[in-house]
């Protein structure tokens, strides 16, 4: 057996995928915590447990993401944009555009007929368009991240966040609460402002159907709905949006 392993160490979560050719044989997602090196090792152990595959059988290993350099056992490092493109293609062959919403940034990637990156744009160095923004707001509203989507879909009149800064929006959210806005409306507001930022990225790089969403953002139905409304498309959502980049890394690891 010639397995290959892809490791994606993100700012919030770390993901690992073992593939056999294009087949996923094992995958896992863990919080990155405060030390990327440790995160990488924990991932490896976790995967060993889950897959019962001994590391001798793993021929090739590639790492990507924020902490790519911290993965001691990685054989090559690959930029996460390429990984994401390859990953999504192995799941949806028809996808030409990916919206990748990560913990600290968002990016839009165009993919050509050969599955290569034909264009990409990354959000500015600002967390406002990222999942972290949601985390912060969820935190002050004291709602579980997993419930955000549901709640936001129930919004009556979403609030508008005109300010850019994610942390700054915190106090804005607080005052909205005291003005009597519901959690639902505030969350929907956050989703909208993230969707706005993302539509700017889409405008900048253009898009071609079909469009998929990956990264943590792909788990948030509220955000998905907001993006679909703002950009005017239906998004294809993989079963495990978070692991797509790691999957791509695993696939590319095998290539010479």
């Amino acid at each position: 057996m010639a397995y290959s392993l892809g490791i994606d160490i993100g700012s919030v979560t770390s993901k690992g995928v073992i593939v056999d050719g294009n087949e996923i044989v094992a995958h896992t997602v863990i919080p990155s915590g405060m030390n990327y090196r440790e995160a990488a090792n924990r991932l490896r152990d976790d995967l060993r447990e889950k897959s019962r595959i001994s590391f001798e059988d793993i021929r090739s290993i590639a790492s990507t993401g924020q902490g790519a350099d911290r993965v001691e056992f990685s054989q090559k490092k690959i930029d996460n944009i390429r990984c994401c493109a390859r990953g999504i293609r192995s799941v949806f062959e028809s996808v030409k555009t990916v919206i990748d919403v990560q913990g600290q940034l968002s990016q839009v990637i165009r993919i050509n007929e050969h599955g290569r990156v034909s264009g990409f744009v990354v959000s500015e160095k600002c967390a406002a368009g990222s999942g972290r923004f949601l985390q912060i707001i969820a935190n002050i509203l004291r709602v579980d991240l997993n419930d955000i989507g549901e709640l936001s879909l129930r919004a009556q009149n979403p609030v508008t966040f005109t300010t850019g800064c994610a942390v700054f929006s915190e106090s804005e959210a607080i005052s909205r609460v005291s003005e009597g806005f519901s959690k639902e409306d505030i969350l929907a507001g956050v989703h909208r402002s993230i969707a706005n930022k993302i539509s700017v990225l889409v405008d900048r790089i253009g898009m071609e159907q079909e469009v998929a969403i990956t990264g943590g953002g792909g788990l948030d139905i509220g955000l998905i709905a907001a993006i679909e409304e703002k950009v005017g498309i239906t998004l294809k959502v993989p079963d495990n949006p978070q692991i797509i980049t790691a999957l791509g890394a695993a696939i590319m690891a095998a290539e010479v």
Partner: protein
Amino acid sequence: MTKVVIIDMDDAIRSVIIGPTGPEHRHQANEVMKAALENMQVPFERIEYCVATGYGRINVPFADRQITELTCHARGVAHSFPGVRTAIDIGGQDAKGLKIKDGKLLDFVMNDKCAAGTGRFLEVLSEKLGIAVEDLGSMSMKSQQKVTISSTCTIFAEQEMISYLSEGTSVEDIIAGLHDAIASRVVRMVKRLKIEPDVVLTGGVAKNIGVVHAVQETVGLDIHVPDNPLISGALGAALLGKEIFLQAKERNETLERKKRQLEDTVTFYT
């Protein structure tokens, strides 16, 4: 946080309560007020005049008057340090620099745009480190060689912090770096007022010896810190409240007041 200070006619502080601030300001105000009154064993009716200040000043149902935290701060700080010319206040929501002369506010600068220059910066990051904010000061004192945090945005500072940890940098050195970061940001802003002694540092962060040192270093002047750096605003409001009350009494004008009549003043700092 929500603070109450009750003073008597001799400016003596009779009751101090510091409670949390949540989204529901109004609720908080009543809670903390209740505690303050119990604390000094007087009925609410005996509160003569009530000034609310700070972020949620409009949300204090029983306040007779609202005055901004800037004016109140100047007054409060000048009460504890009559010689103060520059006051730096690093709160959880914002950071301010005040230029003060003879207890009067002359000029000010303020940052409420970006968390990086406020107490929030340390709160967010210490939470991430799993360290209580109270412990930051003592820990940073143990730092051998502090790191430099270059990101301005709190969230990216967090990222920097993690990569330092991944490189095996000690937590102490990182915390010291965070203290420098916040100090340099705040001082850079306050410098616009041309910092003159005496310089007073207030706000929750002033309890953090590490930050006090960092500020002292960046300013290059001695930094004075009140015994209770959290209540300067509330205290100032109380003093201003008393003045309003006495002034009215002199001119025997009747002050507009929420239903109450008695002789102390109370104040809120939310």
